[in-house]
């Protein structure tokens, strides 16, 4: 947030990519793109693209890592080396380890892990093009992949980023807004119940601004949830053929 820059992020109410402040980029969703996985999905928000795959429930090895009274969800968020301007060294850095952890917490609330003692569900999100909002794109993809894998879930989890750029509150930050804006909030929720499962923010915001951003995020999640549902319907229809 807040790198010095002369870049104007909003001109005449239009963002650098022509959107209005509360508009998401084009959202693309496709389920079952990775046949080896038990469930998978590909999600794009503009030119940010993430793949997700889910394996499990499967027995966890070595055995001393198993939990006797509950199943566990393991998550891994990763960025491909070529997904960013300056090549990212392969392997997990501190940022991706933190995101893997919050991604886990974003999804656990909808799983019935207690009913699967000793097993693991493994969820992987791989960012192949990064242009802001990568973690929420990844969460949307993993959420779809979990459903496609047939993992019992109470609800879908839907995620979006909101934030502040050039003094305006905006939905679905692109890379420039992420780098040069004033605040960035990662947000995930169970839209049907109102439960927030991911909330991260950095920047400078008043309480009022945060309240407005929560509203904008909830509204956007409602729209995105419809796209998740459509992607699943398309998948089941196709599979049923």
């Amino acid at each position, binding site marked *: 947030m807040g790198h*010095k820059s002369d870049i104007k992020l909003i001109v005449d109410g239009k963002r650098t990519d022509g959107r209005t402040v509360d508009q998401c980029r084009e959202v693309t969703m496709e389920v079952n793109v990775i046949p080896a996985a038990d469930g998978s999905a590909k999600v794009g928000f503009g030119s940010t693209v993430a793949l997700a795959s889910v394996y499990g429930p499967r027995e966890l090895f070595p055995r001393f890592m198993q939990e006797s009274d509950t199943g566990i969800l393991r998550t891994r968020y990763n960025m491909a080396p070529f997904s960013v301007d300056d090549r990212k060294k392969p392997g997990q850095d501190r940022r991706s380890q933190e995101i893997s952890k919050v991604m886990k917490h974003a999804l656990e609330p909808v799983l019935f892990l207690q009913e699967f003692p000793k097993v693991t569900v493994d969820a992987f999100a791989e960012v192949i093009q990064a242009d802001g909002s990568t973690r929420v794109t990844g969460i949307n993809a993993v959420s779809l992949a979990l459903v496609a894998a047939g993992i019992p879930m109470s609800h879908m989890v839907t995620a979006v980023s909101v934030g502040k750029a050039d003094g305006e509150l905006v939905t679905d930050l692109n890379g420039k807004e992420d780098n040069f804006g004033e605040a960035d909030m990662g947000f995930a929720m169970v839209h049907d119940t109102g*439960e927030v499962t991911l909330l*991260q923010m950095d920047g400078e915001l008043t309480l009022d601004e945060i309240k407005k951003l929560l509203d904008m995020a909830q509204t956007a999640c409602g729209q995105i949830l419809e796209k998740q549902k459509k992607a699943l319907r398309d998948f089941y229809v196709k599979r049923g053929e």
Partner: protein
Amino acid sequence: MQEKYALELINKGMRVDGRKLLEFREIELKTNVINKAEGSAYVKMGETQVIVGVKMNMGTPYADSMGEGVLMCGAEFTPMSSPDFESGPPSPESIELARVVDRGIRESHCIDVGKLVIDEKNVWVVNVDIHIINHDGNLMDASALGAIAALKTTKIPRVDLEKMEIVRNDYVADLPVVHTPINVSVCKVGSNVVLDPTKLEEGSIDSRISISVREDDKICALQKQGSKGIMIGEIPGMMELAMEKSRELRKLLE
């Protein structure tokens, strides 16, 4: 057993140590506790103990932030501080702690990094290291408090520009700290809101939001933790609570 008892008490609005749900434990704050560090602080929050040391080193600026000093924040969950911690590479928990404290400092712009330039090529690198001494819960708030306290007492050593060497123990200025962010982690236990949980109580937490608040009530960093969700309508109230409590904690720094 004990953990279950702590939960039962919270459900009745009470706590094992007799505190109210929204009450912090007693806080002891000492600064300048490490003589080799350019800034340091010791925080004792109940039985949780944290040392934060700040070392000033020379380095090169980031390519996208020329003309600015560099902040780096690390945390070690030393195995000495808890029976649960192990030796080895940093755990996801210690990484998250360091990154949340880092964001609280960075995003509040509390350090005027534009003043940390040494010469055309070199800037000051401000290394904030958080050392957990005893873990009895609420490491996030204790660490963030220690970090800002240590930064506020940090001095900039003289640089011998001919040798390009730092002359330790010969200070020329205070670190320019222009804001005072305070982190308050607001916890949900069932329908109750709880502050400053002990380690025993942390076993019952459903979720929490760590909220970093500046002295002008600007919120600079948020991090939800825990494996349960929080109703969206509850969040603004949790923020207000954090803003209120942050004023209380900030007084410790004066």
